[in-house]
């Protein structure tokens, strides 16, 4: 049994009106405990609609969503509780900050869970530590922070609920390269410590290739492909028509092969370095 899965999930927006739009059809998605899952697809392919089903924000028009084998819509209370088990971080989450201090904002989720003061305090500090926010920042107003810090504060607000499944919609969009790297490292650290499942939507193939265990490729509301990054990025010629690409390093190596070089398939820079040094005869410097 998977921790969270969808069965023949379908969603139609504005059903029965001229604006009717099928956003998802027959989506079978599943994630195991501790897995890092990537979700890629062209804009409008249904990624955001899919993830909003995972914590019951949207109701499917067909099919079902199961958390630990139970239908998440079986009763209202269960759906409400589910939001604490499946934490969803929206795109540009910094626009949802509202409290006077970062501390209060991060404690919004745990407070809604009905935890006592001491537990809330512990969770806020732990969540802030995961995203590397200092105690000083916790007492500042969220509106005085830099863009990157705001993003971290907003993500901490979800992490503080200590969800078993953490879903993030383009968490690194608009951050500078070092900000991306460290945020991804923070997310990985959360998964390792809590043995949590992480589901991440991203448009950066490099990010996906370096981070996830398994990924789903969406096209026009359906799952077009799924598998390990290696399995998916091997099928580059199928990704291109979907408006997607393979990591740049994979492209370079494919081009090298086309010119007759005997190089293997790689999808991260690390693998590329290893492959080249092996060809040079084992010297691991470059």
């Amino acid at each position, binding site marked *: 049994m998977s921790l969270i899965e969808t069965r023949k999930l379908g969603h139609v927006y504005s059903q029965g009106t001229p604006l009717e739009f099928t956003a998802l059809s027959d989506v079978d998605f599943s994630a195991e405990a501790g897995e890092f899952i990537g979700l890629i697809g062209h804009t409008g392919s249904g990624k955001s609609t899919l993830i909003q089903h995972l914590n019951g*924000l949207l109701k499917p028009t067909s099919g079902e969503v199961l958390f630990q084998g139970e239908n998440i819509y079986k009763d209202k209370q269960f759906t409400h509780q589910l939001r604490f088990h499946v934490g969803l971080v929206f795109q540009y989450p910094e626009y*949802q*900050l509202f409290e006077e201090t970062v501390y209060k904002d991060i404690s919004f989720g745990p407070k809604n869970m009905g935890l006592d003061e001491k537990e809330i305090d512990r969770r806020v500090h732990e969540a802030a530590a995961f995203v590397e926010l200092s105690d000083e920042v916790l007492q500042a107003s969220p509106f005085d922070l830099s863009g990157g810090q705001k993003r971290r504060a907003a993500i901490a607000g979800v992490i503080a609920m200590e969800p078993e499944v953490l879903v993030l919609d383009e968490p690194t969009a608009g951050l500078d390269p070092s900000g991306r790297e460290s945020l991804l490292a923070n997310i990985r650290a959360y998964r390792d410590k809590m043995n949590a499942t992480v589901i991440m939507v991203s448009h950066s193939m490099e990010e996906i290739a370096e981070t996830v265990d398994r990924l789903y490729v969406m096209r026009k509301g359906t799952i077009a492909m799924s598998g390990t990054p290696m399995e998916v990025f091997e099928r580059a010629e199928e990704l291109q028509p979907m408006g997607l690409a393979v990591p740049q390093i994979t492209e370079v190596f494919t081009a090298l092969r086309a010119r007759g070089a005997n190089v293997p398939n790689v999808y991260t820079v690390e693998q590329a370095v290893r492959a080249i040094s092996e060809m040079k005869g084992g010297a691991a410097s470059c």
Partner: protein
Amino acid sequence: MLKDITLGQFFPGDTLLHRLDPRTKLILVVVYIAALFIAKSYISYAVMVAFLILSISLSNVKIGTLLKSIKPLAIIIIITALLNIFYTPGRTIVKFWIFNITWEGLRSAAFMAARIIMLIMGTFLLTYTTSPIALTDGIEILLNPLKKIKVPVHELAMMMAIALRFIPTLIEETDKIMSAQKARGADFETGNIFARAKALVPILVPLFISSFRRADELAVAMECRCYHGGEGRTRLKQLHYQKRDYFAIAFGCLVLAAVIVLRVFGL
């Protein structure tokens, strides 16, 4: 849920009603409303209904969509009708306790309800067939004479255009923020009125902040394009009256005249 709000929504199309000059349509709506309030008899109401049906059939707007637009105002219509039923003196039909339903009361209630419904349908027909930009352009030109007495007509029209433009954006934004707070366990549906009002804070604060941010960005963008108010500003789309506009206005005036005549002769 929030997306179902149709206030001021425009349905693009290429019907006669869509092609009419926005100024013509604005004048016609004013004439139509005036006629509605002058109309008193069955015959004059029949004239108004015929005029409305003709306008609807000339547009591509579905009658169901128009009826839906009445829904939010249904309570006002019902209360107005009820007040008319109980407070109009005349020949009694039913009498119980302090209530006295009269024949005249029923009649005036029916007329009042019909008047409000037709008023709403007529004005919504205007916004359904006229883009917000065309509408504000029309209003600006019609109000131009007021510039002589220093009314900032252009600025008012620009403010209105911007406000209309941002309604869908703000609705979308509200939806997003609500979802984000719900994902953190916010509850907007239970509790007493104070608890619910307090639950709105996590939505309103981000919404206000993003509105100010948007306003700031828009102001900068407008200044970058050298916007400096209405003075000396020319238009990309000049409005010109066509034959059909003169015909439509003449027809509207004819209807108004007919209703006035019917009133004067007490028919």
